[in-house]
């Protein structure tokens, strides 16, 4: 067994195999960060690439991300003691008034698969809650999602609230969702727009100066 096999299980979205291989890797004494960075992350990188190339669509990415999450569940309890370092911390949520979570969940899983420590605030998240999470969790990145044109203005409110609180400079803001465009991101002063879950990881790493 090799960590390449684990990557392959992630790529094809075989959750049970991902669990089995993760357990085996740990039993063999492989350090958890190595399982992540040589098994899970390369697998999700391929998934992301296939998604960008329109070889994979959401169902494919979901089964892969779920396989990755199942593996992560086994690794999480061991990460603190292993001295695992994340590539960054991110807060994610769907903006106020919007209950859609498929895209947001996908970005969360892809960010986790990309090595980020992610705090998921859920759906219908108020500007106050976003700002509070920045103060408490101290992320380098906020990722906001909206599916409705009616809720898009909520993104602007979050940025305004960050400005009002004097903490806008401490965090990068990335936005996405079906109706979002680069033009809208520019209009509201977001740092980045991601057109899909895969590019969200790339944009996030660019914003934080992390090499892919």
């Amino acid at each position, binding site marked *: 067994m090799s960590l390449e096999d684990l990557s392959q299980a992630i790529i094809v979205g075989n959750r049970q195999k991902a669990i089995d291989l993760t357990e085996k890797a740990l039993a063999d004494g492989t350090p958890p960060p190595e399982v992540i960075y040589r098994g899970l992350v390369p697998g999700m990188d391929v998934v992301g690439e296939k998604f960008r190339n329109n070889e994979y669509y959401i*169902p494919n990415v979901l089964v892969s991300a779920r396989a990755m999450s199942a593996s992560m569940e086994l690794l999480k309890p061991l990460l603190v003691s292993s001295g695992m370092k994340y590539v960054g911390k991110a807060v994610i949520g769907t903006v106020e008034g919007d209950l859609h979570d498929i895209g947001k969940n996908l970005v969360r899983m892809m960010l986790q698969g990309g090595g980020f420590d992610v705090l998921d605030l859920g759906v219908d998240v108020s500007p106050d809650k976003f700002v509070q999470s920045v103060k408490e969790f101290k992320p380098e990145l906020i990722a906001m999602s909206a599916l409705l044109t009616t809720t898009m203005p909520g993104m602007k409110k979050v940025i305004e609230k960050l400005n009002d609180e004097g903490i806008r400079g401490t965090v990068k803001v990335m936005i996405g969702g*079906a*109706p979002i465009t680069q033009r809208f991101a520019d209009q509201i002063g977001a740092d980045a727009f991601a057109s899909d879950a895969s590019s969200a990881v790339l944009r996030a790493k660019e914003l934080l100066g992390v090499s892919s």
Partner: protein
Amino acid sequence: MTAKTRIDLRYPKDRMLQNRARLEAVERFEYVDRVPVVFGFDTRFPLAERGISWSEYFSNPRVQMEHQLRNAQLILERTSDDRVAWPGVGVWPDFQNVTNASGCGCEIIWSDNDPPRAKSFLRTIDEAVAWRPEPMAGLWGKRLDWYQVMRELRDEFEVTFNGEPVEIGVGLGVNGDSPYMCALDMAGENFLAWLIEAPHEMNQFMTRITDAMIDTEKQYRQISGRPLIGGFGLSDDPVPMLSQNQYRQHIAPHTKRLYDTFAPVGQGARGMHLCGKNIHVLDVLMDDLKITSLDGYGYVNPPEAYCDRVAGNVVMRGNLDPMLLYNGPTDAIKKECHHIMEVLAPYGGIVLQDGYNVCPHTSWTFLDAMVEAAEEYGKPTLRKKK
């Protein structure tokens, strides 16, 4: 005896006739004098304009009926677009886009300031396999109840159009949200994963949802005296999440069955609304589903992408960015409208619309800019047929 509620709708007759000519011409892939414009007004825009909360709108059939009539009055008397083609007004039991999901068992979350949302309830493949529809469940049954009440309530209203009495039409039908949208409401993202993990079971699940929609629509048509066959509009809005093959294999057969039941090819309009990315499924829409119109198609799709397969073959309504319409400025709105018309209008069958729909509190000045753009552009020169 309670006094009747009087609503007098005013609209210039010559304008109405002109609108009718424009809209009828576009169905023939021709133009009278310019590209017609029809704003994508849903309930949320006039409710917001009038300061009415969603909770009030849904409070009872009498209140909803009056708000729909007042909404229609507001739009009809202010709009600069070409929507008013016939004298008359209609109401319908409206529970927004969660009606079919509720009929299939979803709990509905109501709120004061936002449209209702459906809560997913299927957590495992086994639960989806075990799910069975109940006749006239949830909002499907409530819609029927309200329909009957609204018909009786017509006597409490006196609606006139330019001073002439008009009968209030009361509509009854399933929502255009497709079985695919229902499945997503019922199972959330699980459904997408299950398409890969259990395709056979998901096909059966989709078949049962489709059966339920067909049965309900048949009953609605029978009760309301509408013919069984004669047009059907649907939305497979979450299509950007699927590949062309996934859409063709897992979703389109069920969408097609609805079309074939209520609008067999050549016997009625087969409308499709897709406001997200849809370029990758145009072949499925044209070849498998044989749609006759693409309605409120999204601004995220470049107009150029429709030239090859769609433009000139089906009526197209779209696709100005609603946020551009909301934010302006006028020049940018007009520029985008001109671009859409330059690319697509020569094919015929183009209605300028937002894609989709108009955000609450969008300025009338910005909406008017769409009509001004169509007037500035003038009558498109039709290109020769392929």
